[in-house]
């Protein structure tokens, strides 16, 4: 378990030092929201459906960028080989990378939610509290998937392009559930009414965290 803490601490320290990933994630989230505001037009900007959709588009794009960057740091000087050579378990490495990705994504999401409220003329009220667990579930699922897949795409030609092509279709169920639940939350619906959507997201998270944990050793290392 000390390996897990060491890798996570090292990733956070690197991030605090440069702030590159989180800043890039925030900037990208903001740009996506701005583009969607213009694309949707002023008339639809007040709708919670549009706001929820925009938030999730921002999240998917930011998450992709974050996942690409997270493994980039390990590629400098071939540090990933140093990690694979150490007694560290690949599964533990996956868990640590997942946690780091999750923390960066959470920070970027807080920023994205604030921008969404401003851009889409919403209010900071109780709906934000209901939005938080939905976004957290979405971030877990996406980080789990993207951490696994970026280990694949990072080692193939044109991998940066391949990551969205592989990740987005697989993420669809969590995306559908997340957008629907977020829209309901923003519209002020009670928590119980979105139970089914939350169940889908929980199922997705459990499945992909365990799949990543078990399969990660096959995508890093060797040859």
């Amino acid at each position, binding site marked *: 378990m000390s390996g897990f803490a060491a890798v996570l601490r090292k990733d956070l320290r690197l991030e605090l030092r440069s702030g590159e990933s989180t800043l890039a994630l925030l900037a990208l989230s903001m740009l996506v929201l701005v583009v969607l505001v213009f694309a949707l037009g002023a008339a639809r900007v007040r709708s919670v459906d549009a706001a929820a959709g925009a938030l999730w588009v921002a999240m998917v794009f930011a998450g992709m960028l974050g996942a690409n960057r997270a493994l980039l740091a390990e590629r400098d000087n071939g*540090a990933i080989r140093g990690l694979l050579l150490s*007694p560290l378990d690949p599964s533990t490495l996956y868990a640590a990378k997942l946690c780091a990705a999750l923390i960066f994504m959470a920070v970027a999401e807080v920023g994205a939610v604030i921008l969404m409220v401003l851009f889409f003329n919403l209010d900071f009220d109780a709906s934000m509290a209901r939005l938080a667990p939905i976004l957290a579930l979405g971030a877990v699922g996406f980080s789990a998937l993207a951490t696994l897949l970026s280990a694949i795409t990072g080692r193939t030609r044109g991998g940066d392009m391949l990551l969205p092509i592989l990740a987005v279709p697989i993420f669809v169920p969590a995306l559908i559930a997340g957008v629907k639940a977020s829209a309901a939350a923003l519209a002020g619906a009670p928590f119980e009414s979105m139970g089914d959507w939350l169940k889908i997201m929980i199922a997705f998270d459990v499945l992909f965290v365990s799949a990543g944990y078990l399969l990660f050793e096959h995508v890093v290392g060797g040859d």
Partner: protein
Amino acid sequence: MSAPVVETRSLAKAYGLAPVLREVQLRLLAGTGAFIVGGNGAGKSTLLRILAGLEAPSAGHALVFGQDTRRLAARYRRRIGLMAHQSFLYPNLTARENLEFYGELYSLADPRASAHQWLGRVGLADAADIRVRAFSRGMEQRLSAARAMLAEPALLLLDEPFASLDHDGAEIVAALIRGAIERGACVLATTHGIPEIDGVELAVFEISRGRLMQHARKEEVRRGGRIRSLLGR
């Protein structure tokens, strides 16, 4: 007589259609040092990577501590130190932070003290809190050596340990290699020229056309190397 630390049986490796290593038979015991010489691309680094378990052989077997390197359990990986062309260091961490991080990965009793000690041994105590990205190539090489030896591995694999080191740096690394052999580790290193390390008997191998050959006399290799370089390798 204890079992060999390194043993390869008819080891072969090819990238695509290009054979890099052929029929490599190597046996190294604990407390011995061996150097492999050979031109660029002769397969020296490939052999070290296979022994470290980072690459799989195309044919034959590579055994380290009696274990197949294709699936080395954590407790065997722990006893291997690899110093490769790439330093495995994080440019945005300081020298001390890099060593402490690897110390934690290898679950050393006191990563902080070990890092401090090794920084002193490789003569980087003054540069401990400088980020590695600001290091010169020679400093990075010394830190890379410290990183490889940090956990006192029983098998030390060094790829061009003297590359881009000045005289002092080479002395330091040579002393570390001697120290490792004296404490009973097995050291396998690659070099371009034949190294001299005072007080240590080194076996010398040469890789030529993918084959590993042992040389009793160092002069022979030196002459062979000169002839090959005259022919344009």
